[in-house]
């Protein structure tokens, strides 16, 4: 949504902020209200990165708003610190540092637990502010007497006092805040944050340290909150204890949801609606205390029916109108991808990751004694398994044979109860899935694990970023196009899985077969040397199967692959050797020919649920 012409949003923001003092008074906005809206908007920029982009709903932002605000206000009122901007920045740093520490605790859990913990943490801050720290924060009194900023430029002194004069300072802060936020969401980190929101499991599996990125988002949100909190004190000449209350966090959440999450400007719009309604309902309609009820109802309705908030609603409307036009174009221009395409573009084998141990020449993967128990249930028992460099290995077995569990252990999604896994001579037992992926071993999933809110290209970008940038890197101020080799790798993968024409299509609009190819593409984009494919052909039509087998053949060049599938004809055509699992144990290894004729395998399948081997 934010990926448009360069600097378009920045320019519009600047124009809007400059025009505001000339336009808004005619709409009934007092300068003070506008300043307040901007402070909320700035507060919300960080929160939206956390909630809208990363999907972490925190009800505890007041803790950071208050921390930043009180540190700045304390410096300015009690500590005799004269530089307002300096104090604001120190407040912001303090809030960010607090955010880091709190994040370490709160991010131990996700979802609802995370929300509850943040609520509780915000309350702790409130009580700490009132009691142990009341000498610094003034407790219930707050800190009155916060000065306004002035800058000595040598020849003249700029003094921002109040009203529209202070607006200039706050608007500038907001503008810088917007620029930074835009830069962050357009950076590789921003892309990964969206991936975490959409599918944290897959973001981990393609090799990102999502805990680190979540913590980053948390700290960014805290920093914004801290700076906004400081501005509140400057705006009011007073740092109120209310800044720490749960109500502050609640108001922020509501404003963001009203305005539209994941848009950066949603909180600003929400704050405008909020403060305008507050004034309008109270004074013009004389609703008195009922204004908040009206807001509450509006909020509930928006959450129920307009998930994207006001901005989201407008965007949907725009898309609806623009979409009609696009559809007519599509009918004439674009055709569904053809089977022929796969042959037309014989993609060069994508070079896998550089080998970590060039000298190593043994089996690429060796598992010994691998066992997994769930309570009394044994899913895998004492599996010995070895795959050589460049080999194509198939794994078959009736349902419940423990194939998927076996794969999960190999990719370190789950830890084995006992046994060892050695990848390229390195013991990877007990490592995390992210690290293993970074080493060059990954998997495509049996059930699609895509980033459903993003386009095909964005999906592949996220996977490719993991390989190009490592599992964690804080390049917040780099653009995606600044990542060396990213475009090539994404384009190459697109070609490889034959989705070039669908590159900018949202995942939700893909056909099933295309999603399956993207699923493989996600694994491929990390340039694994060992690729595990869990039922890549599942659910495909015969035509799609043919196409996918071709695809798999083409990607097999230069890399090692292990494939689980039930479609034996396809699988045997593809692989050189096959391992048969039964009841969690290895029944035998052999060439496809040996397996096809083996009596024990026949028995296993005929005795089992499936009888496909007979086909």
């Amino acid at each position: 949504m934010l990926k448009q012409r360069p600097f378009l949003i920045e320019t519009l923001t600047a124009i809007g902020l400059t025009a505001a003092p000339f336009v808004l008074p005619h709409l009934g906005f007092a300068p003070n209200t506008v300043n307040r809206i901007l402070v909320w908007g700035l507060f919300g920029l960080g929160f939206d990165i956390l909630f809208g982009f990363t999907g972490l709903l925190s009800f505890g932002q007041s803790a950071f708003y208050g921390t930043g605000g009180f540190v700045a206000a304390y410096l300015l009122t009690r500590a005799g610190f004269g530089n307002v901007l300096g104090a604001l920045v120190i407040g912001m740093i303090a809030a960010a540092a607090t955010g880091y520490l709190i994040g370490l605790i709160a991010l131990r859990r996700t979802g609802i637990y995370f929300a509850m913990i943040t609520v509780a943490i915000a309350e702790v801050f409130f009580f700490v502010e009132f009691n142990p720290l009341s000498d610094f924060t003034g407790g219930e009194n707050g800190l009155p007497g916060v000065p306004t900023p002035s800058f000595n430029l040598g020849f003249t002194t700029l003094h921002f006092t109040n009203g529209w004069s202070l607006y200039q300072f706050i608007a500038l802060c907001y503008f810088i805040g917007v620029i930074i936020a835009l830069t962050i969401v357009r950076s590789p980190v921003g892309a990964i944050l969206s991936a975490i929101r959409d599918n944290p499991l897959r973001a981990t599996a393609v090799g990102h340290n999502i805990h680190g990125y979540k913590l980053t988002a948390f700290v960014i949100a805290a920093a914004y909150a801290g700076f906004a909190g400081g501005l509140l004190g400057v705006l009011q000449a007073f740092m109120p204890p209310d800044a720490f209350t749960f109500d502050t966090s609640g108001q922020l959440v509501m404003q963001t949801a009203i305005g539209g999450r994941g848009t950066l400007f949603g909180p600003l719009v929400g704050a405008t609606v909020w403060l305008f309604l507050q004034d309008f309902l109270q004074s013009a309609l004389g609703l008195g205390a009922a204004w908040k009820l009206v807001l509450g109802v509006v909020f509930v309705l928006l959450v129920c029916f307009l998930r994207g908030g006001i901005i989201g609603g407008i965007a949907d409307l725009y898309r609806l109108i623009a979409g009609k036009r696009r559809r007519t174009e599509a009918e004439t221009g674009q055709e569904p991808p053809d089977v022929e395409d796969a042959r037309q573009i014989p993609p060069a084998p994508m070079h896998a990751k550089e080998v970590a141990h060039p000298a190593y020449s043994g089996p690429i993967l060796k598992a010994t004694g691998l066992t997994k128990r769930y309570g009394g249930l044994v899913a895998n028992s004492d599996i010995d398994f070895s795959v050589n460099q460049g080999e194509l290995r198939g794994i078959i077995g009736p349902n419940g044979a423990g194939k998927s569990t076996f794969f999960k252990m190999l990719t370190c999604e789950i830890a084995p109860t006992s046994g060892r896994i050695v990848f390229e001579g390195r013991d990877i037992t007990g490592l995390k899935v992210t690290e293993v992926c970074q080493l060059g071993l990954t998997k495509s999933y049996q059930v699609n694990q895509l980033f459903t809110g993003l386009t095909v290209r964005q999906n592949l970008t996220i996977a490719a970023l993991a390989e190009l940038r490592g599992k964690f890197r804080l390049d917040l101020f780099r653009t995606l196009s600044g990542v060396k080799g990213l475009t090539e790798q994404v384009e190459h993968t697109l070609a490889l899985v034959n989705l070039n024409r669908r590159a900018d299509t949202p995942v939700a609009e893909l056909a099933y077969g295309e999603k399956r190819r993207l699923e493989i593409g996600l694994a491929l984009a990390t340039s694994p040397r060992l690729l595990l494919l869990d039922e890549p052909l599942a659910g495909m039509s015969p035509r799609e199967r043919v196409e996918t087998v071709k695809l798999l053949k083409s990607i097999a060049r230069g890399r090692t692959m292990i494939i689980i599938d039930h479609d034996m004809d396809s699988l045997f055509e593809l692989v050189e050797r096959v391992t048969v699992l039964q009841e969690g144990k290895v029944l035998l290894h052999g060439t496809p020919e040996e397996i096809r004729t083996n009596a024990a395998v026949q028995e296993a399948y005929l005795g089992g649920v499936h009888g496909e081997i007979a086909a």
Partner: protein
Amino acid sequence: MISWPNLVSQLFNGLALGALLALISSGLTIIYGTLGVLNLAHGAMFMIGGYAGFVTYQYTESFLLAVIAGSLFVMLLGVAMERVIIRHFYHRPHEDQLLVTFGLGICFVELVRLVFSSQSQLVPPPALFQGITNLGFMFYPTYRLAVVGIVAVALGALFLVLYRTRLGMIVRAGIEDSVMVDSLGINVYRVFMVVFGIGAMAAGFAGIVNAPVVSLTPGIGDDILVQTFVVVVIGGVGSFPGAILGGLIAGEIISVTSMFNPGYAYVMLFAAMTLVLVVRPHGLLGVQGRE
């Protein structure tokens, strides 16, 4: 005032507070455990229970009727809320569930504020329990003493429902493994509705029973909500015994800290929660299942 008599008094007072928290939290936790929805309007339910009872008391002057009406009203409100709104959110992300219940909570609070204003309202304790009881080691308001008993009975009733009925079996099974319950061919939606009603009723009942102890204001549920979160996190999300244990622990932490310095009571409470999170992320009696 650190002294043995005071410690005993505070421990006793903590029991009273803890029992109340346990009841409210168990409502929150069984809803969450079964439906997977964290009801941020739970505090508002507590508050509405108090007000519904208050209105009934105004008309009937009977405390017993007030308790019955307060609980039933909140139960019906819970059922209605589940049918009309919550039901449509089971398949939406957790964040949306949080947002909608949060918004509903605000609507409830503000609606009550509109009708009853922000002034505090008083529900006098029933004549039977008025006055002061000398427990020997301390004086204690008779009604507060009665509250401990009433809440204990309510928790007992909830226990019977959860552990001795078919519904309770389904609810507990659902907490352990919601997929399994789905596949048992049980009409989950009806179960969900009933569970939501019972959970809300627990809060409403606590609200009216607690009303004579404190004065009623529209915002009374907000603080309670946060405290129940702490209780639930300490005890383990979705665990009924956890809610009781967590409630009692929370009550005692608040009271015993109060003996040294009441200002630190909540700081200590949240410190305890943090400790539990670090040591046992799923809570003292929590199950691994839900996240």
